[in-house]
């Protein structure tokens, strides 16, 4: 009797589990199919990531091309087209083993020749490659699936730059035949390894990608850009819609499933709409106040410190961004969660609102009461409203301010000059994989800060040390010193971090809010 019961129980269990698994499988099947319509804010000039610094290109072409290494959700470097890697000779040699079964869009298997050809092109013309090139020796093909990167001197950020999420710096693998055909010219025939392949591009209108049926996903678990990518959708259409309100109404009426960068102040309205979900990208932009370190009064560090004390950062947050869920105060260059985050950066000066101290410091710096010129863009909400709010706060404590708001090209032209401006507000990308490629600092007197003093040379020294240090712990200590130095000299400083808002239809499932939108692993219901 007992035996019979047990047997029937087992049979029941088997039947039950079969039933469940079949429904799960069926669900999995159901996910495939459909055309995804998205609305992006800017059109692009071409689709060759190596030939441009326009981050829109990589946002789209990430579906077509993949990197040797990619970042996962927590900004951990993960081999992607690479199977494994090894660092030898104290960081002078990187041996990389490739995955052997990866098929490209032309039907051939990806091998070392494709990687070598792509890498040489990247080194020569890509913005990221050009950072690496001065330290690099050569790339060697060991056999069909093994490559060796050799350096002349230790260059610690190498792998992080290979997978960099900063505008188009990432190294992606293209078919050798395409590189032979185009050389360093702009590529308009796209053969990669990604889950989607290029189908059609109508300039200023749309880019259409279709599923690559023979796609070979990475064996690792999917997480943001790294690991398994499943192309559920048949087709992805990227529409270029510059007007934010048009993108919004497109999603509201169901024409688009996804819209990039919509007005943050309409958040509540989207929230009330049952068909729309808000997608808040975690603060991936910084609002950076940059001083002209060459011109009085900001050729003196006390004057620069004074401005940090003179500003009420929280009030600035409300004025330049608005709803507090879209911004947070953050003194460090790298956000919380980033391995390079320094939690006590700027303590004692960041977020300390002390107008009296500001006045004392200005006096100490010998400020003569001349009007201070704020140079800022008028098209971007953060730049425009931030500059107006900073002017207001400085005027409240009796500092004379002249506001100069221009369109982007004029701002870029004017800030490149050594005189004519004192302060400049600019958005910086927060998600940087390596402290070395921090956007604001490229060396004494380079870029726009015109910072040239004893302090700036010390900063040069810190960066030179960071470049040679491969050990994380040691390197982190250098980053701490860099942060301390930055908050002492204050050639520029971060006011706050802020988020961007995208919206999507509820039909679009499994969407993850990455620093660049991506649509593998998502499906339509």
């Amino acid at each position, binding site marked *: 009797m007992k035996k019979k019961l047990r047997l029937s129980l087992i049979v029941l269990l088997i039947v039950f589990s079969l039933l469940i698994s079949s429904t799960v499988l069926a669900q999995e099947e159901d996910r495939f199919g459909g055309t995804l319509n998205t609305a992006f804010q800017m059109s692009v000039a071409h689709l060759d990531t190596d030939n441009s610094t326009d981050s829109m290109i990589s946002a789209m072409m990430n579906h077509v091309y993949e990197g040797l290494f990619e970042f996962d959700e927590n900004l951990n470097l993960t081999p992607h087209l690479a199977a494994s890697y090894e660092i030898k000779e104290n960081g002078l040699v990187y041996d990389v083993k490739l995955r052997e079964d990866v098929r490209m869009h032309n039907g051939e298997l990806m091998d070392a020749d494709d990687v070598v050809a792509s890498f040489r092109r990247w080194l020569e013309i890509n913005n990221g490659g050009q950072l690496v090139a001065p330290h690099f020796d050569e790339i060697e093909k060991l056999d069909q699936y093994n490559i060796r990167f050799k350096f002349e001197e230790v260059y610690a950020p190498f792998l992080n730059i290979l997978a960099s999420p900063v505008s188009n710096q990432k190294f992606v693998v293209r078919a050798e035949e395409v590189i032979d055909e185009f050389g360093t010219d702009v590529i308009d025939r796209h053969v990669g390894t990604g889950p989607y392949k290029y189908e059609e591009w109508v300039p200023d209108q749309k880019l259409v990608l279709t599923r690559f049926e023979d796609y070979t996903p990475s064996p690792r678990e999917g997480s943001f850009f790294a690991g398994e990518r499943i192309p559920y959708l048949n087709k992805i259409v990227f529409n270029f819609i510059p007007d934010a309100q048009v993108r919004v109404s497109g999603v509201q009426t169901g024409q688009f499933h996804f819209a990039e960068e919509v007005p943050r*102040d309409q958040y509540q309205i989207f929230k009330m709409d049952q068909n729309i979900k808000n997608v808040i990208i975690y603060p991936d932009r910084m609002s950076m106040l940059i001083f002209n370190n060459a011109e009085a009064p900001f050729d003196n560090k006390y004057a620069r410190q004074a401005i940090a004390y003179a500003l009420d950062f929280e009030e600035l947050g*409300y*004025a330049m961004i608005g709803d507090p869920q879209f911004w947070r105060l953050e003194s460090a260059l790298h956000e919380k969660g980033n391995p390079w985050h320094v939690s006590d950066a700027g303590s004692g000066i960041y977020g300390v609102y002390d107008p009296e101290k500001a006045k004392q410091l200005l006096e100490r710096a010998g400020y003569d009461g001349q009007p201070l010129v704020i140079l800022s863009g008028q098209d971007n909400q953060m730049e*425009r409203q931030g500059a107006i709010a900073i002017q207001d706060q400085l005027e409240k404590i009796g500092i004379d301010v002249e506001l100069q708001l221009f369109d982007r090209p004029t701002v870029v032209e004017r800030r490149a000059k050594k005189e004519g401006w004192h302060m400049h507000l600019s958005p910086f990308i927060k998600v940087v994989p390596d402290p070395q490629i921090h956007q604001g600092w490229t060396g004494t007197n380079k870029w726009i800060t015109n910072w040239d003093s004893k302090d700036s040379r010390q900063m040069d020294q810190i960066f030179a040390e960071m470049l040679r240090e491969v050990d994380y712990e040691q390197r982190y200590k250098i980053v701490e010193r860099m942060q301390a130095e930055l908050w002492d000299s204050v050639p520029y400083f971060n006011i706050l971090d802020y988020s961007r808002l995208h919206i999507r239809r509820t039909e679009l499932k499994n969407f993850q809010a990455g620093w660049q939108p991506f649509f593998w692993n998502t499906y339509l219901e």
Partner: protein
Amino acid sequence: MLFLKKYKKYEHSYITTSIIILIILISLSLFAPLLTDYNPVRNNARNRLQPPSKEHLLGTDQYGRDIFTRILYGLRTSIEVGISVVILTVIFGGVVGIVAGYYPQIDKIIMRVLDAMMAFPGIIIAISLAAIWGAGKLNIILALSFAYFPKMARIIRSAVISIKDLDYVDSARAAGANDLRIIFKYILKNSASPIMVQATFNFALAILDEAALSFLGVGIMPPAPSLGAMVTDARTYMVVAPWMILAPGMMIILSVLSLNLLGDGMRDLLDPHLKNTLKK
């Protein structure tokens, strides 16, 4: 004065309404500091996008500034721009129009140049000039005056031409009056009515175009209040904070409408051809 006499006689309703509105608007802008405790440019961002309430009659904008206050000061800017543009166009247009009308020798050259200028819409000329000279109140005034004066010059020229051969001008000349005396004493005085009508329309147009230029970002520089710039700012917040766009929009409508009504009414009163229709 001719105008006042006629007004007493006919009591034109357009003019009555528009003058009442204009008096209200002008006193609002003149007495702005007395009517509000707020400063039009000082931020209070923690109080942003507040709906209309007792403290903020028309709500606050995205910097937490009081919209009622900004409208009063914005109106001030509009009126300043309008008056300055009218004065400048009358002076420029007057000089050019009189020279062209009174001296037929150079009439053709001047008029062809003005024709060429009038081939472009005024707002396009103003936008290009503002873009070249840069934004700012003074530049806007100059750009708009430059855009409007050809039309004024044309009107004054035709008035001069129709008057200068009349008998009383001939008799003045026969009595030995010189050109300047004839122009100021006999011609200009008698061509005042079309100039006044056109000046009123220019006033309205200047307010509207200042708003348009500020809306496009080449007008009054922020944070100084301007009705047009307030409408631009409000666009993003139209759905969440409709009071931001309604208030400056209404102000633009009121001021432009009342000036246009005034212009229409004045034309009715002063145009001899319309006398009969008025009497009915």
